[in-house]
């Protein structure tokens, strides 16, 4: 697998504040890579460095094996970008902005293919291209940026919190379009703090906090780090036996149901015990990324916030 994005010990300081503090990131070709972290963790700063809009203070960043600061223009032929907070030109219509960006990227050489692609995207995203930039709502500005990015083929899509402001229906459309791009062979870096989005789309995930990577891997790999939750109907005579099962944590009885958590790698050992007890209405939920996330940030959210200010 060839590497499309790689950063090593990437550092970025703004005066005294440290935005990136030795970030390592690897994204392989064809991957949809989730780039997770709370607001201010350094996601946008990383993306700005990868796009050659900012220069690292230390460490190195490589895009397709090249320096994104020095070779920005050449590299951008292969990249499409959706900013997190989309600003549009107030006096250009959405359609004009889309065409402008597509032409700048050089993706309109095949005029007919481009027009068809654009028309299809405008249709699925239900975007009116005739409105002026200043008249769009936040969600519609986001759609303009998405259509502009997806209307021309790219090898790498860099998406910075691309679904902020989209309604759930449009998120579905977005997921479909990203899978379509991925199936055409593109690599996607998807930054987000919305876990369900990453869970639905991504092959691999990197979690960053305070400018540093704290976790990286496929979703199954990360899941072993946390606990599944188990629930079934409560029968008072079983209480003693339940307490004796190894690996059971946080056992509670609530509203007629037993609930507890189990280390994910021990779940296979617990299930036979439950079978022996003949429990009713059994549910086993895999750990959500939410929990993964809380484990990394839940303990000291306040410090993370402070570091977020730069």
């Amino acid at each position: 697998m060839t590497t499309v994005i790689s950063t090593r010990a990437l550092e970025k300081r703004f005066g005294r504040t440290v935005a990136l503090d030795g970030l390592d990131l690897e994204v392989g070709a064809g991957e949809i890579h989730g780039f997770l972290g709370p607001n201010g963790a350094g996601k946008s700063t990383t993306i700005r460095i990868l796009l050659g809009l900012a220069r690292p203070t230390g460490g190195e960043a490589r895009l397709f094996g090249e320096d994104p600061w020095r070779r920005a223009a050449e590299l951008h032929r292969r990249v499409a970008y959706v900013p997190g907070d989309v600003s549009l030109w107030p006096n250009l219509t959405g359609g004009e902005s889309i065409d402008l960006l597509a032409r700048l990227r050089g993706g309109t050489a095949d005029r007919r293919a481009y027009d068809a692609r654009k028309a299809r995207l405008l249709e699925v995203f239900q975007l009116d291209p005739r409105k002026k930039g200043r008249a769009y709502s936040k969600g519609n500005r986001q759609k303009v940026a998405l259509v502009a990015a997806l209307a021309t083929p790219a090898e790498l899509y860099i998406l910075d919190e691309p679904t902020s402001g989209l309604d759930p229906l449009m998120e579905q459309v977005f997921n479909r379009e990203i899978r379509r791009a991925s199936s055409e062979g593109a690599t996607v870096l998807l930054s987000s703090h919305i876990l369900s989005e990453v869970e639905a789309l991504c092959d691999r995930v990197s979690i960053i906090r305070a400018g540093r990577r704290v976790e990286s891997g496929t979703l199954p790999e990360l899941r072993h780090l946390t606990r599944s939750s188990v629930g079934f109907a409560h029968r008072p005579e079983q209480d003693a036996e339940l307490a004796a099962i190894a690996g059971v944590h946080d056992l509670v009885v609530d509203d007629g149901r037993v609930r507890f958590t189990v280390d994910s790698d021990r779940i296979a050992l617990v299930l036979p015990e439950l079978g022996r007890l003949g429990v009713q209405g059994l549910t086993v939920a895999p750990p959500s990324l939410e929990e993964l996330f809380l484990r990394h940030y839940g303990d000291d959210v306040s410090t993370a916030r402070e570091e977020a200010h730069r």
Partner: protein
Amino acid sequence: MNRLAVLLAHRVRRDRVQLALWIVGTAALALMATTAVADTFGDRAERESILRLTILAPAILVFRGTPNGAGEGEFATFLILAFLALLAGLMSTFLAVRHTRGDEEQGRAELVEATPAGRTLPTAATVVHGVLANAVLGVAVALAFGLSGLPAEGSAVAGAAVAATGVAFFGVGLVAAQVFRTSRGANGFSVAVVLAAYLLRGLGDAMGESSEDGLTRTAAWPSRLSPIGWAQRAEPFAANDLAPLLLSAGVAAALVALVFAFQSARDSGASILPDAQGRAAAGPLLGSSLGLAWRLNAGAVLAWAVGAAVFGVLATTLSPLVDEIGSDAPAIVETLRRIAGETASFEEAFVTTFFTMVGILAAAAGLQAVMRARLEEAHGTAEPVLATPVSREGWLAGYAVVAAIAVVAVVGLAGAGAVLGAASADDPGATAELALRAALAQLPAALVYLGAVLVLLVVAPRLTIPVGWALLALGAFFGVFGELLGIPDWMHELSPFSHVPVPVGGEVDWTGGSWMLAIAAGLVAASVVGMRRRELVTEG
């Protein structure tokens, strides 16, 4: 506290700096005019000769006012009243739009309307705020006149005239805010109405009839359609008649009633005119960073160039009058000569002075195009462009090219206007040639500014806009008026405008010009190279 009072206090607080600047600035201008009357036109005979001159050149009246007599107060009114009324109009329309459509567009209005204040009380607070602002402005102008030793009654009438005009245009701004969907649209319409009113009363003055002695003039009908014309008909220091001002107050009251009718009928955030639909696809020009830079600046470049063309026409149409002025007002001749150079002939001095202004306009047009690049960077719209295969230096170069086009267009159209205007001169060929040379001479100085601000944009992006305008203002002031004010030579020499090749006695010394061209080229090149090494600076 009463809700209206809360809303009003909030408006006063938001505007405290901006309104203070408008009011103090306008009053300072009034003070400068009255001081100028005392200093430059202290002699009644001189004032009379200038007023009589307007019979020969009524076009001058477009930029002045209706002559109402040769007394100091009347003369100050003639010089400045229409302009003060224009400023009051602009202050008021911006204020009206800012607190109504501006807030609605930004979504702030919703926050307030969702409280028990409701939909109409905020507008009522804006109305009170606007009327109060104009009252304060009127008092400030009256004080400026009064403190210069002019009669109290006339000063009060002048202040009232300015305030009444402001209130009338305030009504226009409020209505525009109801009609247009965006504050940009509402401001554009209101400014157009204010400028049209200024021009109408200018036409009325120019078409009017002079009295026997040439010292007073009755404005023609177009002036009666304009609130600024009504302000002049109050004739401060002469008739001191407040009746015409009632017309302004009446118009304002009617417009405010209309605003409340509109307001109660429409949804919050909606407008009487729907937002126009635009093109679904981009035109052929919008396909490169340069094309975008042009698209974003084209309107402004066009406006500057049209203004410059008018200036050019005036420069040569007014020049045939120079002999008349030359014999009647030696002080003016002396002033012009100092700006243009000691040995200039009178016509040369006159045309060159006009074109120095064109040079400043050209520099301002170029500067605005460069500043657009900074705005793009700060507002986040440069980012998506630079995320495509557009290099940082190529991006900046696009704006540099558009800025250079703006400079050349302004100077070029001013020259073209001058050639048109020269048709009425005694020797059209010679006058046109003189004007074209004077126009060309301004190019290097304007280009130096462009280069300097480009470098500023690369080195200190956050300072581009304030420092850029300050540099131009200082350079224009030192370069044009430096010798008049007796500032040290080295300060005067710092200004590019003091090195403009002046056509004197038919000979032009191009040394300064070529040096400046070289400096400009060097600065532009340095900025483009510097941009390679600079990050994007978005915030602030």
